């Protein structure tokens, strides 16, 4: 037996994304954002997307390109503070935005990846974030039902990958990537290094390749990946 090969071109992988799809996108700020996959999705042009991402990057970076091209109708996120363009679109009603507490967004995605229906949490009770949420009385406490989130497609960025789709991240580029890499029907990974089977130590793999559908090698990194000079 040998493990199947899932290496793919970026264009072929992204071409599967349909209008109306729900798309998870990794990253927290610059680190871990799959800038190259996002640019390919802009070129591909699928519309009416629901995007799930921690943040909206910054103007003219990352998913801001998808916002500017009008491909996004709904955004499930935690914080838009660095992207005034996203806030403007939200305030103008051109995109619908659902805000989650950051760790709850992480857990909802993880629950989707773990095949659970949801989680029970007390986060946000007594604040407007709890409004409208289903409440379950359990063991004398009221807990909020936080539904699992899954997506049609997840776009993730890894530092290193092998051809089976095993992924390893570095530093704070990990963030939402390992969670989203479990939580979509089609998981597409871009990797700075795409290596042969066995090149990643079995103990140091962050995302087992079994969760990944397509893995694509990045060439030279675009300037979006670079250190931001403010």
């Amino acid at each position, binding site marked *: 037996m040998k*493990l199947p090969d899932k290496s793919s071109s970026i264009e072929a992988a992204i071409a599967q994304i349909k209008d109306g799809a729900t798309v998870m996108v990794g990253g927290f700020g610059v680190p871990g954002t799959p800038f190259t996959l996002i640019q390919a999705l802009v070129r591909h042009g699928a519309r009416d997307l629901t995007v799930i991402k921690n943040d909206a990057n910054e103007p003219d970076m990352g998913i801001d390109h998808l916002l500017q091209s009008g491909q996004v109708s709904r955004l499930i996120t935690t914080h838009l503070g660095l992207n005034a363009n996203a806030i403007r679109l939200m305030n103008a009603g051109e995109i619908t935005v659902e805000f989650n507490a950051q760790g709850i967004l992480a857990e909802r995605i993880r629950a989707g990846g773990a*095949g659970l229906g949801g989680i029970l949490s007390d986060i946000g009770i007594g604040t407007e974030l709890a409004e409208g949420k289903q409440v379950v009385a359990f063991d004398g406490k009221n807990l909020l039902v936080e539904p699992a989130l899954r997506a049609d497609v997840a776009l993730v960025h890894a530092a290193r990958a092998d051809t089976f789709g095993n992924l390893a991240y570095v530093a704070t580029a990990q963030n939402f990537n390992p969670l989203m890499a479990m939580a979509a029907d089609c998981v597409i990974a871009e990797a700075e290094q795409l290596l042969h089977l066995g090149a990643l130590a079995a*103990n140091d793999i962050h995302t087992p390749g079994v969760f990944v559908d397509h893995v694509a090698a990045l060439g030279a990194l675009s300037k979006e990946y670079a250190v931001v000079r403010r």
Partner: protein
Amino acid sequence: MVARAARELKPGMVVNLGIGLPTRVVNHLPADFPVCLHTENGLTGIGPTLSAEQADRNLIDAGGAYVSTVPGSAFFDSATSFALVRSGRLDLTMLGAFEVGANGDLANWKIPGKFSPGVGGGIELAQKARRVVVLTTHTDRAGNPKLKDRCSLPLTAKGCVARIFTDMAVIDVGQGGFTLVETAHEVSPSEVADATGAPLNIPETTLPRF
């Protein structure tokens, strides 16, 4: 029967082989067959079983056998291991059975008053693998059918079994109950029907033999 069951594995699949007979299916696969074997204690990419002399004390499968890795194997914790199962990444599991119902119900973990060691990981494999097939002897040691109209033992999962491989036959389980697909050499369809505790649909065409 094990060799026949091995043909159930298709290229590219992620597969979990239950303890016992199913584990032996790997011996019938070509060396370069593209498949990913999963064991629920935290490994994708199971390599050959090792003797005690060759074994790594930290590397077992869920049945306790000392196994090895292949290029590209990954280790992970028990939560991730079942996340994979429950979220639909397991294409196929092969399990043993005490009883299979004509409605696809599976009972393979408990015999009240006699055997109740706990359900382990079987319930999630049976309920969540995309395809569940059973490998079992056609009858129990006393000669009673294991394939029944309805299971009498506590269920592992409802309506989960798609196909059964026994020493006598290959049988599909669907809307219409049990349907004979293949028979073992030297076994006739009517012999299979006699050893089955529920109606068995027998196609009028000549069935393959294995």
